[in-house]
């Protein structure tokens, strides 16, 4: 996981400790919280995007063919996508070490 320097000298802080880089949390990869990973079966997928819209991590991205692919850098493995997929195209499997 990308190392982040959370300890900064106060001399380097912006006024009011303002954070000036929008969306910088993207540098923090939450994927290593995961104990289960979603596996998509493209043959069953109907590309409805339910997994994408229900993902609290915004981990799903649409590819060129219109399939929604989970970015495992961010997926925390909650399993909402597998639960909500209307055709059961996503299964959760245990993360092997």
């Amino acid at each position: 996981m990308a190392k982040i320097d959370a300890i900064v000298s106060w001399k380097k802080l912006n006024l009011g400790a303002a954070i000036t880089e929008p969306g910088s949390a993207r540098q923090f990869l939450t994927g290593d919280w995961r104990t289960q990973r979603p596996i998509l079966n493209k043959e069953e997928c109907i590309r409805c995007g339910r997994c994408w819209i229900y993902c609290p991590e915004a981990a799903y991205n649409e590819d060129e063919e219109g399939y929604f692919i989970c970015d495992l850098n961010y997926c925390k493995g909650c399993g909402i996508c597998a639960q909500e997929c209307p055709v059961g195209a996503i299964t959760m499997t245990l993360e092997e070490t």
Partner: protein
Amino acid sequence: MMPAEEKAFKGLKARELPKEELFTQGHRACQGCGGALALRLVMKAVGNRVIVANATGCMEIISSAFPQTAWEVPWIHVAFENAAAVASGIESALKALMRKGRLKKEKIFVLAIAGDGGTADIGLQALSGALERGHDFVYVCIDNEAYMNTGIQRSSSTPFGARTTTSPAGKKSIGQVTWKKNVAEIAMAHHIPYVATVCPTYYQDMMNKVKKAITTPGPAYIHCLAPCPTGWRCSPNLTIEVGRLAVETGVFPLYEVTNGECKINYPHRRLKPVREYLQLQGRFRHLTDKYIEIIQERVKEEIAKLQALEKFSSFYKNALANF
């Protein structure tokens, strides 16, 4: 302020939901957090011309772990109690700066976000003040039904029978003994232009309501039920399902009140038994049939009241038209 946009907006289509993520990946919410999903959907609906004031609570902590932020828009962390007051200040400052020509004249929305504790308890008077003064802003309450960020303490928005660390269940207690405070109804009593209840399970309904709220001139209040697997003691993959059952059982009906006219959006079929909603959650596991029956009766009563309000408001509108 933008009646043209308000009129043109007919609702988002499922295929045309905005792709841009203004509440980004890498936030620190628990697995399956309903609140984080709610914020993501809210920001998709609002767009990037907005300034956000966020009260202390889960949603603030998880999105702004120093030195990073999950927000793509100007965002300010405010104290636990004053999201509405700060939002009022931002709105007034924008107005003054534009009037003095120090800022380009354009529409910048103002959004206040707070948890249920920050809304129903400590922030209630700031909220009431802001609604009463008529600032042009939207207040979104992310209601996870307890003070989750500090470790699941009860709030006045915790439902009857729920176990929290300060309303424990045991031999002499059934958990929370008071009924959930209805903040949406309190907001309605301020006669503001727009009040709505939403749940991220019904994402299209939710985004449409947020969009409507933000484009409505004057104050708007949105009450969002945000299932919290950690505090509700349910499996994180059931967040969406729990939200769905909350609506389908009538525990959390989705409705909107536009200029006093009430419309119930969901549930539109027969209510499911509340047991289906309660049994998914560990916080209600101790409840016996007797208490489940009490909750069922209360839900029926609340829904009946809401339906009466819906009938009354259309009746009243017709009467007014013929006056």
